[in-house]
């Protein structure tokens, strides 16, 4: 009985969401009541309701009509019979929605693509609305407010080396891990760095406050900010990776040049 009611409610929702053009009016209040989700909780504010309209048009295909996620083809098909694949968003909180939307990681072009930093299509207001809606789905962490100015730069370097540099490289230039790219951090804002550490986007490990405390996180952010603009004596920086590529350039390019000069000097003069 309950199950069939749930399926009926879902069917109504799917039909509604599929029909929703981007930026349509918020769904009627009845939908919220009918969905009967315990985590939806209370009556969402106006902003969250606006966010739901945007969510339905842009996110529901993969994350489910009420943020319950679409686990994959064996479990259930997504909106419009597409095998939409995405994790549930209940309880992820404003922190995750804010990170994925403001970095342009979401919406994703294909469910199996690696999210990467790209042009943000939503306006500030629209992002605020979607973040409010996703936050209303469950009790998740809020957007962090880091204070990098309180951090310690040398401790930040030590912590970054320990926890982050394995993938992101010690100068935060990014790299690869088998099967995926590791993004450079040059465009990451302090808030986004704090968010990424706490939510562990894509393949990145997630660090709780027990693993990395807030003060240590401030130090890490301060170091990353520093690494974007290190004290640079100028010249060809070679990605600030250090003496190894510098030696390669010196030996390969400089050495070849010297050999070429020797050849020119040693050649018999044509008179």
């Amino acid at each position, binding site marked *: 009985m309950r199950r069939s009611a749930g399926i009926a409610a879902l069917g109504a929702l799917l039909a509604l969401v599929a029909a929703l053009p981007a930026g349509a009016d918020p769904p009627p209040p009845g939908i919220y009541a009918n969905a009967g989700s315990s985590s939806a909780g209370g009556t969402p504010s106006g902003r969250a309701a606006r966010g739901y309209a945007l969510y339905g048009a842009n996110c529901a295909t993969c994350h489910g009509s009420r943020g319950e996620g679409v686990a994959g083809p064996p479990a259930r098909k997504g909106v419009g019979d597409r095998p939409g694949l995405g994790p549930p968003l209940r309880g992820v909180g404003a922190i995750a929605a804010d990170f994925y939307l403001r970095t342009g990681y979401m919406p994703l072009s294909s469910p199996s693509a690696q999210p990467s930093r790209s042009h943000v299509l939503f306006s500030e207001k629209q992002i605020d609305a979607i973040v409010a809606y996703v936050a209303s789905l469950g009790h998740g962490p809020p957007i962090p407010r880091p204070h990098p100015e309180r951090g310690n730069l040398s401790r930040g370097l030590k912590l970054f080396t320990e926890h982050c540099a394995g993938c992101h490289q010690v100068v935060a230039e990014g790299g690869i891990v088998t099967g995926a790219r590791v993004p450079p951090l040059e465009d990451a804002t302090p808030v986004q760095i704090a968010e990424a550490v706490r939510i562990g986007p894509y393949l990145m490990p997630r660090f*709780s406050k027990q693993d990395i405390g807030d003060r240590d996180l401030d130090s890490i952010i301060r170091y990353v900010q520093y690494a974007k603009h290190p004290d640079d004596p100028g010249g060809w920086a070679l990605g600030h990776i250090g003496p190894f590529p510098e030696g390669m350039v010196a030996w390969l390019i400089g050495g070849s040049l010297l050999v070429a000069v020797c050849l020119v000097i040693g050649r018999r003069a044509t008179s």
Partner: protein
Amino acid sequence: MIRKALALGVALLRLWLWRPSPRVEEPPRIVAPGEPAPRAELLLLALLGCASACAVAFVVVYAVDLPRPTQLFGLCLGLMFAFLASALVLLGKRLVPDEEIEEDYPAPEREHAQEDVIGIVEQSGDRFTRRRLLKVAALGTGGAVSAALVAPAVSFGPLFHTSALDRTPWRRGRRLVDDAGKPLRAADISTETFYTAYPEGAPREDLAAPVVVVRLDPEELRLPAGRESWAPRGILAYSKTCTHAACAIALYRKPTFAPTQPGRALVCPCHYSTFDPATGGTVIFGPAGRPLPQLPLQIDGDGNLRAAGNYSGLPGPSWWGVRHR
């Protein structure tokens, strides 16, 4: 009028330029006369001028005290030396005359002296009575000296003395501690990240000492037979030293949403050997030839992680025959 003045001027100029030609006979030339090369001289002058200009520019940059003059210093000095070097090359190649001289080997002066030397060498060994014994002794000494020189090379490899490679600081009951020496508690190990741990009270520099600790859902585990009890509550420990070239396993791949993303893996940053923690550290990508050795774990009464024995294989890089030990 103008013509007259011009003629006068020319005459005066001639008078001024006139020198009495020296009467002495010039000695015969040693160096062959060459064609004068006015264009090369002009080029040489230009190069020297450029070098001087760069030198002056260096002084100016030094005096002006610009905010970041390092590149300008380098540019001035570098160009200065480059111009100077080009000038010298030009000088040597185009302006200083050169010629080739060949000298034949002198004919051997005393041919009989060579025969004498051969005779001396042949007859010097006449006074030895036990020639064969001495030869054997000399050969033996040569062999012994060579052995003494080569012997230290044994330290390069595990040919003779390999017990150090079998030694690990892990014993049954030894606690896992973090970088600061604090014991790792099972309850604090999250499934979302990875930890580095060391044996309590043992040297950490040992290749076998550091382990990487991860936690998986126990249902995800597909450990080889006989290791069923090695991962209490899904907590696993593997040697942090890559079995390929002994780099530290510093990368952990943790999918946020498993159906669409690459699976969990421990990755070595040197050559991207990739190991699956769920299946006992088997290699899923890269040059490593054998799995990461797994350390069996147990949880004591206080909730701390302890080793429940020693590794499943030899920790550290691989060598010939490592699989047979």
